[in-house]
């Protein structure tokens, strides 16, 4: 990638990011009904005081399984790279 295209990419991205940064309002989320539900009902439904944990393991537990799988996948990948190769293997 040459210099002009690179600069242009950075400028476009900077513009988009800055626009985003200024159009979202910090500290006052636009919509929060799902999170209010978690805060209001999380304790009663899951019995967990820590609502973040309630979300991580109960309401969105399936994501967490996926996340644990990602970690497992990475371990397999790293293991695959640093495995002991045999001589007759077609590298």
């Amino acid at each position: 990638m040459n210099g002009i295209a690179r600069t242009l990419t950075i400028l476009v991205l900077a513009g988009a990011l800055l626009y985003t940064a200024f159009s979202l309002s910090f500290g006052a989320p636009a919509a929060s009904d799902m999170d209010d539900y978690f805060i209001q009902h999380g304790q009663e439904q899951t019995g967990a005081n820590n609502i973040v944990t309630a979300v991580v393991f109960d309401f969105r537990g399936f994501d967490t399984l996926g996340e644990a799988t990602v970690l497992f996948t990475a371990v397999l990948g790293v293991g695959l790279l640093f495995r002991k190769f045999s001589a007759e293997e077609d590298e």
Partner: protein
Amino acid sequence: MMTRIVRTAAGVLFPFVLIFGFYIVAHGHLTPGGGFQGGAVIATGIVLLVAAFGAGEIGRRIGPGALKGSEALGLLLFIGTAALAFGFGGTFFANWLANGGAIFGNVVPFGPNPGDLNTGGVIPLMNLAVGIEVLGALSVIVLLMFKGVREETE
């Protein structure tokens, strides 16, 4: 291999790191923390040992087999806990222990409270499962990468 002072200090610190990690795992449903964070703390303890004693020594002592086994065991516990909900008529990941009155089944009223360890349904079980998995996975990654570095310098 570090100096004797570092090795002794690491040996002394390691049990505390372990206990702290398991504390974070076990209280995941009450205080900030949980399986991932606690597992990462324990893995940090193992990295501390690696830093003090060298990866070769630790790799021989603990063995990647044990760590990989703990990783697989954690994942199986996790997916098994989630799948047991089928037996109770719920869907995958339904919290079949919460508010049941038995293990981890105490009912929690809404609002701030001092916290009761015996709550949360399957959440403490899953925290434990993920804790076991993460400590195994992160340690295996570190040991494997150290092994790769060693082969490179040889």
